[in-house]
């Protein structure tokens, strides 16, 4: 019985949600550190960012991590959708009058909705940057900050990103920036509930540690999306 329980149990589906979710939190930190390099000005920033992009797409250890990330995103989404449909089935007749706001937070009740927004964002985000970097002809950076020729030309993701949020180059830049910011708000709400919820699911609920986990979760859910969102706003405003 326990073997089937391991594969099918409601609790196991939740363990997977928690583990993939927490791993994706780590991924967010890594991604953010990379993005923050876009604040470095001039050719120096361009070189550093492009070298970083090359490292992220060619280093074998990073490659392994990236496959774990793809798996986590897809499985988190698949498992979440499955759980949501099961949960809908568990209440076929709805209440005529319900006041869920009296006993639970908005984010905790709308994880599936927020997750759907995030999945749409990830799809467009990967089309705009990840797919270009991997599968299409890219502009190349051939010289460094001092004007010296590079030993090996770099795929110029920096220019692609700059142009994407530049209203004089991309007439959809405003829409792109706004959608990015809205998605970061969605991820903030998703993390507001998700971070501490993952620990509870894994059985970590302790007088000493739970208040700390909740505090870290709230800080994380505000700070990380905020820093992500500031970048496209900065690029849009400074290039407008």
């Amino acid at each position, binding site marked *: *019985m*326990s073997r089937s*329980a*391991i594969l*099918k*149990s*409601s*609790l*196991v*589906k*939740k*363990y997977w949600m928690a583990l993939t979710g927490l791993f994706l939190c780590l991924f967010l930190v890594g991604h953010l550190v990379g993005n923050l390099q876009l604040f470095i000005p001039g050719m120096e920033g361009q070189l550093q960012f492009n070298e970083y992009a090359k490292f992220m797409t060619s280093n074998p250890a990073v490659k392994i991590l990236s496959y774990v990330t793809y798996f986590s995103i897809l499985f988190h989404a698949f498992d979440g959708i499955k*759980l949501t449909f*099961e*949960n809908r*089935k*568990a*209440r*076929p*007749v*709805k*209440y*005529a*009058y*319900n*006041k*869920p706001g*009296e*006993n*639970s*937070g908005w984010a*905790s*009740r709308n*994880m599936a909705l927020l997750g759907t927004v995030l999945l749409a964002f990830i799809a467009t985000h990967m089309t705009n940057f990840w797919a270009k970097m991997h599968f299409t002809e890219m502009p190349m950076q051939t010289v460094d900050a001092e004007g010296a020729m590079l030993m090996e030309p770099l795929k110029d993701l920096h220019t692609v990103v700059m142009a994407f949020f530049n209203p004089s180059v991309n007439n959809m830049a405003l829409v792109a920036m706004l959608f990015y910011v809205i998605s970061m708000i969605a991820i903030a709400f998703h993390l507001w*509930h998700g971070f*501490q*919820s993952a620990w*509870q*699911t*894994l*059985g*970590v*609920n302790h007088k000493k540690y739970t208040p700390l986990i909740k505090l870290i979760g709230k800080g994380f859910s505000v700070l990380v999306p905020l820093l992500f969102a500031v970048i496209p706003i900065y690029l849009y405003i400074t290039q407008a």
Partner: protein
Amino acid sequence: MNLTLKIWRQSGPNDKGRMETYQVSDISPDMSFLEMIDVLNDQLVREGKDPVAFDHDCREGICGMCSMYINGEAHGPGRGVTTCQLHMRSFKDGETIYIEPWRAAAFPVIKDLVTDRSAFDRIIQAGGYVSVNTSGNTQDANALPIPKENADKAFDAATCIGCGACVATCKNSSAMLFTSAKVSQLALLPQGEAERERRVLRMVNQMDLEGFGNCTNTGACEVECPKGISLENIARMNREFLKASISSES
């Protein structure tokens, strides 16, 4: 007090059911909610109509029978009370009150506000017990040393009356708070040690079979629970299940 009541009426499990409106007058603010329904039913019987079927037994908040979803909340607006302990002074004169049965696929409506909660009994039967000798030579309760903190936590978990408010209020109709309270009250005590692994595996398995939803940690159950059963119990069950799933040989 004069009140407008909008009550779910359903003649049987196969009836589609509908909300119907009733007026009651001269309700004392000191009446319990169930006494107010008694007044309505008295009125309905006098008019030759079918009274509203509802579950109730002890009317002092310990049996877990009363089960109404009142104005969008399980057991109504009060905290830490069952419907029988909810008094009419919690409402305003002239107010409209919505009264519905618990809503969950696992709790089918039998009639009006009465639901079949035997799914909970089957979860208990699956493993919520200890095999101890009760044939006259029972051991003294103090023979086994138990830390005070564990005894307190086990007792708190054991105060669950199995009313089903957790399921009713959960947006997923999840039975995690109930099941985890019943797992915890035994997992915390040495007497529960012998069946520790198989208990949590079987009870969770039965919970899933009954068609309850999955927990999303909204915490609504803990807020609405008339006995204040803590979410700590859910985390404990998550731990117990994880450990048992990994170590169990069956």
